[in-house]
C-alpha cells in the first residue's frame, strides 16, 4: 500500500473500500518485483490461427511466456473471424478489424477498473461504445492514397461510479496512458511475417 493510500485509510477508517474485483495489492507487489527483476517482465503473447474456408479462420489462444516461464490460460480460447454476407462471405464470426476494437475496449476497460480500484472509486457500470471509420477503397486497391486501416477510432465511455465527472475523465485518461492496445493502435509497430511450405 502506498503512503498516500495508507494515510487515507488511517484518516478515514469508516470510508468503505471500493471493490471492483481488482487485486491492486497483487498488482503493486508484481510491479515492485518486476522493477527488481526486469527480465521477468518480458512477456511473449501468442496466438495460432487455422484457415477454415473462404474468409473464415479459427484462432486459438492458450499459452504465453512470462515471469521467465511458459504459462497457460485456464482453458483454451477460440475465436472465429469471418466477413459479413454483404461481402458474399459466410459471416461465421466478427471481422478481424472488429477484433481490434474488441481488444481496445477490453484493454481500456481493464485499465479503468484497475485505476478506479487503486483510487478507491466504486464502479457500478462501465459501458464502452466504439466506432472506427474505414474507406474500403484502400483494401480494395481502388485508391492508393487511401490507407487500408482505420482512418480513426472513436471510443465513448458511459460510467456509473461514486466519483465526480472530473475523476471519471481522469480514470479514462489514465487508462489510455497505460493501455497496451491503445499504444499498439496509436504507434507504429515493427511486424515481420514469414512463411514456409509444409
Amino acid at each position: 500500500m502506498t503512503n498516500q493510500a495508507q494515510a487515507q485509510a488511517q484518516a478515514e477508517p469508516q470510508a468503505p473500500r471500493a471493490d471492483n474485483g481488482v487485486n491492486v495489492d497483487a498488482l503493486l507487489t508484481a510491479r515492485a518485483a518486476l522493477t527488481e527483476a526486469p527480465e521477468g517482465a518480458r512477456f511473449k503473447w501468442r496466438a495460432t490461427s487455422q484457415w477454415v474456408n473462404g474468409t473464415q479462420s479459427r484462432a486459438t489462444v492458450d499459452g504465453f511466456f512470462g515471469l521467465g516461464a511458459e504459462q497457460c490460460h485456464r482453458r483454451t480460447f477460440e475465436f472465429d473471424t469471418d466477413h459479413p454476407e454483404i461481402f458474399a462471405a459466410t459471416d461465421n464470426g466478427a471481422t478481424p478489424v472488429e477484433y481490434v476494437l474488441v481488444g481496445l475496449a477490453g484493454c481500456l476497460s481493464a485499465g479503468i477498473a484497475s485505476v478506479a480500484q487503486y483510487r478507491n472509486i466504486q464502479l457500478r457500470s462501465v459501458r464502452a461504445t466504439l466506432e472506427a471509420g474505414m474507406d474500403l477503397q484502400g483494401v480494395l486497391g481502388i485508391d492508393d492514397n487511401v490507407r487500408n486501416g482505420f482512418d480513426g477510432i472513436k471510443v465513448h465511455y458511459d460510467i456509473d461510479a461514486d466519483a465526480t465527472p472530473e475523476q471519471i475523465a481522469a480514470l479514462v485518461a489514465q487508462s489510455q496512458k497505460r493501455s497496451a492496445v491503445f499504444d499498439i493502435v496509436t504507434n507504429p509497430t515493427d511486424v515481420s511475417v514469414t512463411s514456409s511450405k509444409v
Partner: protein
Amino acid sequence: MSPSGRATDVVVIGGGHCGLAMSHALSQRSVDHVVIERGEVANAWRTERWDSLRLLTPNWMCRLPGQAYDGRDPDGYMSAADVAGFITRYAARVRAPVAARTTVLRVTTMDEGYRVQTDRGDWSCRAIVLANGACARPALPQLAADVPASVAQWTAKSYRRTADLSPGGVLVVGASATGLQLALEIQKSGRQVLLATGEHVRMPRLYRGRDIQWWLLASGVLDQRIEEMDDPMRARRLPSPQLVGSTERTTLDLNAVRQHGVEVCGRLSGIRGKRALFSGSLRNVCALADLKMNRLLDGFDAWARGQGMDREVADIRRDRATEVAASPRLGVDLGCDVRTIVWATGYRPDYGWLDVPVFDRRGNLRHDRGVVDAPGLYVLGLPFLRKRKSSFIHGAEDDVSEIAAHLFGHLDRAAGLTRRGDPVLT
C-alpha cells in the same frame, strides 16, 4: 598522492549555484575545500543557453543562502546573463575557493577518500560533492539515430537563435517549457513549425492575479519531499511546466502556440525511412494535462480559502481546454516538409569521469536524496533530489543545508571525532 597532488577535505565539482552554496556551507564550518569549475563560475549560464532564455521563476524567488534578489524588477524573469551575474556576485560574496578553467578527468577511490584527477593536477580528498548540474548532456530518444542526414539537428543545448537555422519547416520534439518556447520563437521567424507533443505539464503564468510560482511556493507544493511521493521515479522524471518568463507575463500553452500557427501533433513515435510518424495519442495527453492543471488549481483554491485569502487574490478564472485539430497529423516527410529538427527532449547529468561503482544497471547514479552510495560522495541540483524545488536556484538552500549536515557527520566520523549534538540526517 602524486607529487603534484594537493590534499583537501572536500572537492566540490561544479561552480554553479549549488556548488557555490555548498562552498558557503563548508566555509561557515571552516572545512577546507576547493570548487573545481571547467570554465568560469556559472559556466553553463554563460555558454550553454539559447539567447532568449529567461528563468521560469520570478526574480523575487531567486535566492541563495545569504543572498537575495535586490534588483528593481522583483516580478521580472532573469536572462541567462542575469543569472550568471547573480551567481558570480555570490561566488565573490562567499569568497568561494574556485579553481577555474579546470576540467575533471577522473575520480577514483583512494585510501579513506577520493582522488580527483584534473587537467591542472590532482587532488586528494575525503569527500566529494557532485554539483556539475542536471543538464550536462541532451537526452535524445533512440530514434534520433534514424533521422536522415539531409535534416539538420539541434538540441536545446546547441540551439542559440533562429538565424542559425536553415530555411524550411522545423520539427520541434518535446512540449515542455523549452519545446514550446523554441517552437513559438521559430514559428515567428517565418518557418513553419510542427510540435511533437507527448505527456506535458500545463500551467498558466498567472493564476488569480499571482505568478503560478507564488502559488506553488506559498501553498507548499515546492516544499513537498520526495519521500512523500507515491511514485518518486515519476516525480523526478516530470518535464518542466509549459511556462515562459516574459515582460507581458503571458501564458505559454498549446492553445497559444497554435494561435501563432504552430501545428501540434502527437509524440514522435517512429522514423521509417524519410517519414517521421506521430502517435495518435495527442488528444489523451492534452486531456491528461488539462485534468492535472485543473486539479492543481483546485488545490490552490482550497488552500486560499483555508488561509482566508479568497478576497486578497483575484476571482477564479480557468483557461479553456486544450484544443486539438480535428485530425492531427500522423506523419511528415523529413527532408522536404521538415528541414530541421530541434530536440527539446530533456537533459541528463554526466558523470562519465566518475570511476566509482555507484551506478545502477541503467547507468543512473545510486543515491538516497543526494547521499550517494559510497561514503563521502554527495550529489546536488538534480530534479526533485530532496524537494520539488531542488533543481530551482532557490531550492539549493534547503538541500545544501541537509546534505552538508550529513557531510559534516561523515568528516567527523572519518576524523574519529564524534561530536555530540551534530545534526543528523534521517
